[in-house]
């Protein structure tokens, strides 16, 4: 029983109280025999296993009275979908109804600086540069917006609807220091407003300018000021099997949304049959938003 303790050297002898008995480097202060190690392991491992069992039992007991499964999440299988978005710049009339619908549906602030989607009018200027304008994010359309003075006579001009590209290789999720922005199984990138610390890294990192920090005010998407926000493809609509609000209200069908896993979906057919391009492909972010009919000079 006590053989080990009797044969082991007394603790005082190896403690560095006496300089001459200082232990050699790399040796435990309290010498411990192999037998003791095995004894501790023999006691500790069952303790951990028992603790785990008790933890599981407590979890099971307390989880049992909450069987309510969310009706939306339960029916929606994110891993079965791969969402894609197509913007037809040839069809777009720049009416701004998509911007209105987005801000209404998601409670986005009404000003131009804080917006999930916006419409740009891109025009080739006299000197060959591309003029980009987006008055009030295009929420009122462009009916009263004259072309910029630098626009060349008869120059090419196009409406380019913008939103989060939901990149497959997204810089925003990489730079987030707290893991608050993440990608779901269906490819949509979301922000966890409870974890976001509002540092703004993702806002700066996004090469498409798709993110903003929610300002304090009556209209906020999540009710939390100071956190990052961006287009979610209207995730609450998508999980219910509906189209994003901007796609729903577009009067000319310039925005199309669908499942790229389904070869018969409209977006799959379009991307298979028609030439399309993504914005800033040289960055290698592999956006899920594709553009039809975008002029070379305006891309």
């Amino acid at each position, binding site marked *: *029983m006590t053989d080990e303790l009797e044969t082991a050297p007394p603790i005082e002898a190896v403690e560095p109280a006496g300089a001459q008995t200082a232990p050699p480097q790399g040796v435990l202060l309290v010498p411990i025999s192999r037998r003791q190690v095995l004894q501790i392991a023999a*006691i500790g491992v*069952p*303790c*951990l*296993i*028992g*603790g*785990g069992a*008790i*933890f599981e*039992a*407590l*979890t099971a007991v*307390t989880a049992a009275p909450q069987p309510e499964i*969310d009706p*939306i*999440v339960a029916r*929606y299988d*994110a891993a079965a979908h791969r969402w894609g978005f197509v913007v037809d710049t*040839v069809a777009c*009339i*720049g*009416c*701004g*109804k998509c911007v209105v*619908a987005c801000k*209404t*549906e998601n409670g986005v602030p009404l000003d131009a600086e804080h917006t999930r989607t916006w419409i740009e*009018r*891109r*025009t080739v200027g006299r000197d060959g540069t591309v003029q980009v304008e987006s008055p009030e994010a295009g929420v009122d*359309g*462009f*009916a*009263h*917006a004259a*072309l910029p003075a630098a626009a060349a006579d008869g120059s090419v*001009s*196009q*409406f380019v609807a913008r939103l989060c590209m939901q990149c497959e290789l997204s810089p925003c999720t990489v730079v987030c220091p707290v893991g608050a922005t993440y990608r779901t199984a269906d490819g949509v990138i*979301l*922000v*966890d407003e*409870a*974890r976001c610390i509002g540092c703004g890294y993702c806002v700066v990192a996004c090469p498409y300018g798709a993110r903003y920090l929610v300002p304090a005010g009556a209209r906020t998407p999540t009710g939390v000021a100071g956190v990052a926000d961006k287009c*979610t493809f209207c*995730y*609450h*609509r998508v*999980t*219910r099997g*509906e189209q994003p*609000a901007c796609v*729903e*209200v*577009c*009067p*000319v*069908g310039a925005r199309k949304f669908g499942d790229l896993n389904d070869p018969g979906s409209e977006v799959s057919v379009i991307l298979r049959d028609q030439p399309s391009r993504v914005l800033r492909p040289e960055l290698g972010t592999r956006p899920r938003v594709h553009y039809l009919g975008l002029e070379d000079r305006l891309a």
Partner: protein
Amino acid sequence: MTRRSRPRLPAPPVRRALGRTRVALARTRVVLARTRVALVRAARRVRRPLVVVAGMMVLSTVLGVGAFAASAFYGQYGAPRTPISVRSWSERPVTYLGSDCRGCHSAVSATSAGAPHAQLICESCHVPSIDHPGPVADVVQMLPAATDEQCLTCHARTAARPAAFAQVELDRHYPGAGCVACHDPHTSSAVTPREVTHPLANLPACSTCHAPLGLKQFPANHQVAPDAVCLACHRPGASGP
């Protein structure tokens, strides 16, 4: 006791028997003592594993309860947060309900079938129908206030708008007339204003003849107006733009 009370009884056979008895007693005592020691040792051997097992059970309980108590905190702020966030995004309320309006508003449905605007959902021009139909006392304003502005958002001639899309020049397409005077927004069909076929020179004001009780045509939905208003739409010699 017997030995001391009878010291002087040295009969050899008796003494021998006594001696043997004494030895046997002593041996018995030794056996008893050894047994007792063995029992004590055995008891120690049995008791220690019991203590160990009891200690392990207590430690397991402490570990398990502690982990459970910490798990709620960890689940709230730690890694398993993501499913909660996904769920919170999924459960947000829908504002635009889609084109369910035509079940009740069948008159609109009939007129708009086949019209260019038939492909639009109602909420594109009307407000989102999340609050409709609301309580009876709570009249929901479904129509936008500025109707002309609604039309022009899409149909004003604008740079970058596709050429095939129906657009009007604001200052050349019956300015001031109001879009719905000629266009039904649901069918989007236009009533082309009738041309003025008679000469206009040396004539009094239009309303001299074209009046509610006048001699000439005057539609019921018109109002008496200055000549400039009439001529804005009823252009002589042209079908209008």
